[in-house]
């Protein structure tokens, strides 16, 4: 007897989804892991803890932290402005947020390099006050900021839209100043969305490649990022070496996403305990 289902098409859609996930996501990830496993544990360890690799982790993580921190503040303010104020050109600004999503990262990299080179529009005045951006870690940070901004804006924006301004009215009637209202009411209510945005942005920064390599200068031990090192290993036909480094990046990103989702579900339970 055929089983009755309320929602039709489950076997088909589930099947398609699973095949897709397997082919596009799980299989390549497994391939990287398998490739890395062709190394002995000692070889693997030597590759991933070589001074050059360690320096790329340090640069990548520190720059990603700086960029994410910047975007957490700036992206939040951006979302706030888009939701809470009306002004001419708002729609255009709203569209511009997505430019880093739409723009090929190489285009972004070339553009940023041209802008921040010593003779560029931004680079020249900055150079005259002694700040060098292109070919320094600052350049890496700027490229990361550029590509990861939409993640924070686009995760905070819809939640902020749902946030009733009456919460702010209530807080101010109770005597709260702007700072207290932000700290005690708005931020806690936006925290799950902000956390998600921050972690997407951070993971994106860790993995960014195209936008960075143009502006970074890519000097080993000073401005070389981890994904570039993996790329260099591939170019040297050192596939296991590339896979070992890729494995480190993979687990770092996975760990961050898992931690975020744990934090979010803890926070969600905390919010709606019922």
């Amino acid at each position, binding site marked *: 007897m055929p089983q009755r289902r309320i929602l039709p098409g489950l076997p088909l859609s589930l099947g398609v989804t699973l095949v897709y996930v397997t082919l596009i996501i799980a299989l390549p990830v497994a391939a990287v892991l398998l490739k890395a496993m062709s190394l002995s544990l000692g070889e693997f360890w030597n590759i991933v803890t070589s001074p050059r690799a360690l320096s790329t982790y340090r640069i990548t993580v520190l720059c990603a932290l700086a960029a994410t921190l910047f975007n957490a503040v700036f992206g939040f303010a951006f979302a706030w402005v888009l939701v809470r104020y009306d002004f001419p050109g708002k729609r255009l600004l709203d569209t511009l947020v997505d430019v880093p999503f739409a723009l090929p990262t190489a285009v972004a990299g070339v553009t940023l390099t041209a802008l921040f080179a010593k003779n560029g529009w931004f680079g020249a005045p900055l150079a005259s006050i002694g700040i060098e951006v292109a070919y320094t870690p600052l350049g890496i940070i700027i490229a990361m900021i550029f590509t990861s901004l939409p993640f924070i804006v686009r995760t905070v924006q819809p939640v902020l839209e749902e946030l*009733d301004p*009456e*919460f702010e*009215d*209530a*807080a*101010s*009637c*109770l*005597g*709260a*100043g702007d700072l*207290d209202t932000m700290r*005690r*009411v708005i931020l*806690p*209510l936006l925290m799950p969305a902000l956390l998600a945005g921050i972690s997407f942005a951070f993971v994106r920064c860790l993995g960014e490649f195209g936008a960075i390599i143009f502006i970074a200068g890519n000097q080993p031990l000073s401005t070389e990022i981890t994904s570039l090192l993996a790329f260099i290993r591939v170019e040297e036909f050192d596939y296991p070496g590339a896979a070992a480094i890729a494995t480190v990046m993979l687990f770092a990103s996975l760990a961050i996403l898992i931690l975020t989702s744990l934090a979010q579900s803890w926070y969600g339970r*905390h*919010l*709606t*305990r*019922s």
Partner: protein
Amino acid sequence: MTLHIDSVSKRFGQYQALDSVSLDIPKGELVALLGPSGSGKTTLLRIIAGLETPDQGRVLFDGEDATDVAPRYRQIGFVFQHYALFPHLSVFENVAFGLRVMARETRPSEEQVRQRVSEILKLVRLTNLGERFPAQLSGGQRQRVALARALVIRPRVLLLDEPFGALDVTVRTELRRWLRELQQELGLTTIFVTHDQEEASAICDRIAILNEGKLLQTGSPVDLFTAPATSFVAGFLGSANILARDSLGAGAPAGLAGAKLAFRPADGKLSPSAAAPAPGGHLRLSGTVQHREFLGSIVRYAIARPGGEVQIDAPFKAGEAFIAPGTEVAVDIPHDALISLNS
């Protein structure tokens, strides 16, 4: 605290939300702002709280101009229509909020906060629910938390926006009675916004009737019911039959000067049209029964007449026959039940 609202106007784009509204509220009074939706009553409440700024006019607290004082310095208790309880804070922390955000010099100690919040929770009969979160409460409980949160800062005025709107009928009647008792116990000047005339009449000292941004009339519920000044007020507070004076010809009593006359549906007496002429001191209208509704203790007849339809509520007596639609009837209204209206 006494409150003076001095010719306050507010416009939102093309829409005149308030048009030169003036209102004085003495200390300890419970006043209802009553009007249909869009009449400007919530805007007026928000202006008193400082959440909106008037385009013109002033708001005075105890004679002091408070028009430009920010809401956080007004010490006003505001209960929002949907309560606006902070969902991430427990009932206890919601109520404690107003104490925790006080300036450092005046902020009570943790011990004092505990004590004050427990007092207030006891006052609103929520003693055991301090650890709960707003999502775990019923509508009536949320309403009382909102009230407790507003009361904790010892407000000078309590403002309530449709406080019973989101509750079902039984809870609503119970809560409004309780609110009235609490308000009198605390002697707190209170203003509440409602569109429900029964609610306003039931618990208020005074009602201010608003329509299209204008304050039409203020007075005690009884005054407004017995002596409405306009047909809008007459029709809004209880139902009323409005008669244009011209349509009555010579029958209109000479003593009433208004352009329109009104009477309550219960004040008209029905008799067969063939009966004796109207008794002395009565206004007689004649018409045809159009429609009949049985409402339990009364029977409501709609009578069609040349000057427009009137409604008559006849007391229902078991065993008595209804008057059938189509019957010609006479309606007799005693002169002293007629209300003279300006417009």
